[in-house]
């Protein structure tokens, strides 16, 4: 029974007056797996999370969670899910502990269970010292942690996390990754949206890349990276006059040159071996090397190669965002 589907979206579209926030997205997650939803600002990630968590009705298509349709059986779906939205959804006047206990009761746990789970989560998320202070007084990272803890209180089988690490410092980010991995290890199915390739790479069993409401790629992290291209080796050449020669010496199909920056770059599929080889060849040819560095493909590279436009500077979605903000 390892291929049981935890949630499934079929051809879901959500249209607003002028914006197609989602325009026919389909995806599926097996029980106990982490599905990464990757996309730039305005791609439709939050909209999809809201559809799955019964907050928005899709204009078209269907979404099922644990066998229940979000449109017709929202109450059944709500029993099965935990949601951590993009923006902290914590009651600022209540203490961390009170927030957790309230959530437990609203999830219809017994008073005793709610108390016990709240205490557990406070410990797990390292908030003991702040547990009895109003959340108002928490730092951004602490708020994010209590926010996540709140969606875990009833240990629901499906959890939606909308950009859970945006705004966290590197350490908290790693702690969050750890938590997410542990959850999945315990059998929870997770949908995690992110703008970071490395996050999806690290956590997700499967990745769906969306842009402007449409799926543009999907697959395992490895298969996606293979599509985008591998890490690149960037060599800054000492003398401008030798750049062309360096290119010939390094060779290969996908070698690229930037004359202004005196840089030659090449796919580094061979890892360290490739690095050594390139350096020794250049040395033999007496070409001076200023510096050498390894670049991992960024989300921008992914988008560049998949869509032909970059992820972050997308004027049309930016404009749509502004309009939304004005309202």
């Amino acid at each position, binding site marked *: 029974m390892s291929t049981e589907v935890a949630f499934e979206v079929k051809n879901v579209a959500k249209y607003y007056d002028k914006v197609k926030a989602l325009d026919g997205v389909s995806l599926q997650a097996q029980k106990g797996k982490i599905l990464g939803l990757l996309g730039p600002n305005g791609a439709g990630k939050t909209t999809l999370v809201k559809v799955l968590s019964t907050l928005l009705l899709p204009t078209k298509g269907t979404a099922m969670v644990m066998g229940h349709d979000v449109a017709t059986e929202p109450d059944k779906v709500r029993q099965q899910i935990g949601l951590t939205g993009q923006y902290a959804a914590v009651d600022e006047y209540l203490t961390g502990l009170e927030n957790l206990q309230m959530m437990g009761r*609203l999830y219809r*746990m017994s008073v005793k269970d709610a108390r016990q789970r709240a205490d557990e989560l406070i410990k797990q998320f390292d908030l003991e010292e702040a547990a009895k202070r109003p959340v108002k007084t928490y730092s951004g990272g602490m708020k994010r942690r209590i926010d996540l803890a709140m969606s875990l209180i009833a240990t629901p*089988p499906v959890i939606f996390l909308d950009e859970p690490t945006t705004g966290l410092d590197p350490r908290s980010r790693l702690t969050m990754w750890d938590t997410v991995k542990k959850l999945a290890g315990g059998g929870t199915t997770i949908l995690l949206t992110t703008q970071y390739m490395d996050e999806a790479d690290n956590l997700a069993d499967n990745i769906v890349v969306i842009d402007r409401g449409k799926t543009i790629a999907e697959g395992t992290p490895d298969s996606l990276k293979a599509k985008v291209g591998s890490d690149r080796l960037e060599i800054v050449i000492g003398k401008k006059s030798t750049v062309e020669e360096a290119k010939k010496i390094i060779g290969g199909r996908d070698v690229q040159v930037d004359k202004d920056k005196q840089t030659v770059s090449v796919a580094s599929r061979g890892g360290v071996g490739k690095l050594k080889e390139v350096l020794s060849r250049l040395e033999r040819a007496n070409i001076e090397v200023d510096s050498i560095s390894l670049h991992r493909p960024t989300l921008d590279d992914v988008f560049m190669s998949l869509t032909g436009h970059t992820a972050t500077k997308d004027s049309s979605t930016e404009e749509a965002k502004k309009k939304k903000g004005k309202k």
Partner: protein
Amino acid sequence: MADSEILTEHIDPEAHKNIFWVVNDCWEMTRRSIRHITRSFDQIISLILFPVMFMLLNRYVLGGAIHTGINYANYLFAGIFVQVLAFGANYTTINLAVDLKEGIIDRFKSLPMASSALLIGHITADLVRNLISAFIIIAMGFLVGFRPNASLTDWLLVAGLAVLFSLAISWMSAILGLFVKSLEAAQWIGFVIIFPLTFISSAFVLTSTMPAGLRAFAENQPVTQVINAMRSLLVGTPMGNSGRLAVIWCVGIIAVCAPLAVWVFQRRNR
């Protein structure tokens, strides 16, 4: 699968009847709103300041110029009381608008809780706030010369009517809170509605002194009926139909606004 057994062990809605959980949800939401009252400095200040200010200003600034046939403190009390109750309901509009603006509404809506619980929580908190205001108003009233001749039964009837009126106006305010687009709007819209409603009434002056159009409105709107009924119970002015009409108005408003508010809330932006 063994895993999913562990996962759902905490959630057991079947352990109680559905109605138990609806009451539980309302209680949790009410408790949350009440904690907001005690932990928010603004709310506490306005809770004390409004009744004191209204009572003193009307009694001493306007009181000398107004003739109502009876001791003005006795006339004024019911008016100020109802006005303060009405203004208190503005908190439902504001607090609801705050909730809707922040992410927490998404969280609540994604939970298996009864969807009306959030509204009921805010409205019950209004009732608690108004109860506190009521004690302050009564104390202030006695300070400025209010001398009721009401029996215990009369006081109980006044309390009942106050609760009914508070609920009616809070449900109305809840609908406003669901529609306003911003916090600023939430603040002024309540005033824009409640100021005229309480001023064009028998709260501060006899309606017979008003120009014909205003008078017609004043004498046929719910706030006047509630005030007249309370005044009659407290200081023995003529009751007429006002008691019956006040109850009919309040019950009518609740019967229309409560289901409407819940309906709007459930369908909002889905």
